[in-house]
């Protein structure tokens, strides 16, 4: 029953995909010769002018271009012409670093907030004010103080991924069932051991949910941040190709951003499943 449901869903997905590609193809294909001009002039104007072809690339153009990129992902022809693999690599590295720093800060701090009502109350106003600030609003300040565009991007990733993790950790830790804590107390388990053997495993699913939200936000923000700071990365690539008026490359980049985002989410989802316990 479930497998047949999965099969039917897959069929519908493929049908939708083909329909989308078909409509896209029809909408962007040329309508044949529309204007007569000298061959030299026609070559200069391109198919858009001569055959009524849309300026929007069709699926075949994108597919061909994508195949070129896939064949040579890591070429490096100077600052404005690097392989997509290299650009994605820069973005993933920045996200990874900023995110890692956020984990290191948010999880211990979240533990502290969750375990101590005093610290919770004391830090609450700061968190409430800092949390809603758009991470990009920090960018000028980061550029001014850090004076390095790459590090500033990492800082922006850090600041945007810290909040969901911090809040989820604090919530998960504070919401650990009283009876589990009581078990540890009746067994005279010390605070540190209790934190690792009871609170951490009990709060782990909530903490990882926060981490999953964070990685999603970090990946959203890195594109915008790289458009601002420039230089390298998939965000910069999108902006650069827009300036080159290469819509094909922009579409390819959009596609890859989506694929990488999905992969990052799936990795975290797998970790979440690993620490989730049935009750």
């Amino acid at each position, binding site marked *: 029953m479930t497998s047949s449901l999965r099969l039917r869903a897959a069929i519908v997905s493929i049908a939708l995909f083909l329909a989308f590609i078909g409509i896209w193809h029809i909408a962007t294909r040329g309508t044949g010769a529309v204007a007569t001009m000298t061959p030299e002039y026609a070559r200069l104007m391109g198919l858009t002018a001569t055959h009524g072809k849309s300026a929007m690339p069709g699926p075949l153009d994108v597919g061909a271009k994508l195949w070129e990129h896939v064949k040579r992902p890591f070429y490096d022809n100077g600052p404005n012409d690097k392989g997509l693999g290299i650009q994605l690599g820069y973005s993933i590295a920045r996200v990874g670093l900023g995110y890692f720093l956020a984990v290191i800060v948010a999880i211990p701090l979240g533990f502290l907030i969750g375990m101590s009502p005093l610290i919770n109350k004391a830090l609450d106003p700061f968190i409430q004010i800092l949390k809603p600030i758009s991470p990009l609003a920090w960018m000028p300040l980061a550029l001014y103080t850090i004076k390095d565009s790459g590090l500033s991007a990492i800082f922006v990733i850090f600041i945007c991924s810290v909040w969901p993790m911090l809040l989820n950790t604090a919530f998960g830790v504070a919401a650990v069932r009283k009876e589990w804590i*009581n078990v540890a*107390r*009746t*067994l005279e388990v010390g605070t540190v051991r209790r934190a690792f053997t*009871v609170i951490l495993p*009990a709060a782990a699913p909530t903490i990882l949910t926060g981490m999953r939200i964070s990685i999603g936000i970090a990946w959203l923000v890195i594109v915008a941040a790289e458009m601002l700071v420039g230089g390298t990365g998939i965000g910069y690539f999108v902006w650069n190709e827009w300036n080159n008026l290469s819509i094909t490359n922009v579409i390819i980049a959009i596609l890859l951003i989506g694929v990488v985002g999905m992969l990052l989410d799936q990795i975290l989802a797998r970790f979440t499943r690993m620490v989730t316990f049935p*009750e």
Partner: protein
Amino acid sequence: MTDKFISIEAIAKRYPGASGGEIAVFEDLWLSMARGEFGCVIGHSGCGKTTVLNILAGLDEPSEGTVIVDGQAIEGTSLDRAVIFQSHALLPWRSVLGNVAYAVTSKWRGWDRARVKAHAQTFIDLVGLTGSEHKRPSELSGGMKQRVGIARALSITPKIMLMDEPFSALDALTRGTLQDEVRRICLETGQTAFMITHDVDEAIYLADRIFLMTNGPGAVLAEIVENPLPKDRGRTDLHRHPYYYAVRNHIVDFLVSRSKTFAADMPGHDPRNVRVVKIGVSEPTIVAAPRAVETHPAQTIAR
């Protein structure tokens, strides 16, 4: 009762009331138990039974008074006092063995893996869970979970077992087998046990003495009923014992009517000297002080 292994002395528990004042769950409560004794507390919901047990466990602190165990005032929780929780409170991310082993390593920090495992296994076998060691709590039935809770409590070889309605969530059949097991284990190991229950038959089967509490707020320990049934009583033929109905009726009567009106009926109630009830063949005999019981005529007749 000269040997006071557990002595609850003048404890009170108060919570801030709705309108500024304080609401006392109970005041000036005294209760003592001998080593190796099995005591059951019966009382209506909300009268403060769990509160007493938590104070005894060290999980909660009394607003006033002290609890003395083995000659020492308790401070917080202790590995000497194991708790069997009503909701079993197993750690769901650990296996059966892992849950018991967690308790064992908490008590004996220096033990190596093999020793911890062997020790834990002994107690898993004791409660009849051999073969389920590697199951997670979510894969166990309610009765099996409760058994793991019992194994965990016993594995640290406590001096006192504290049980808060341990079997109330189980079906009658499972409850019966677990009652048998708990009774057997307590008799074999000489445990001192303190159990809360709502089941009168459970109390009569397990307890040496039954503590009756009046309704809260301001609950008091009204009576202590000594169990007249012989030590070698069986669960299934309890009702054949000549004193069974007398004890049962006495407790049910208390729960049905006297638990509400006790404070009004007994203005001179002395919390330090709670009446001990010994059941004779015909009528329950209420005796003023425990000392007097030994020579009471009804008691002689009963024997």
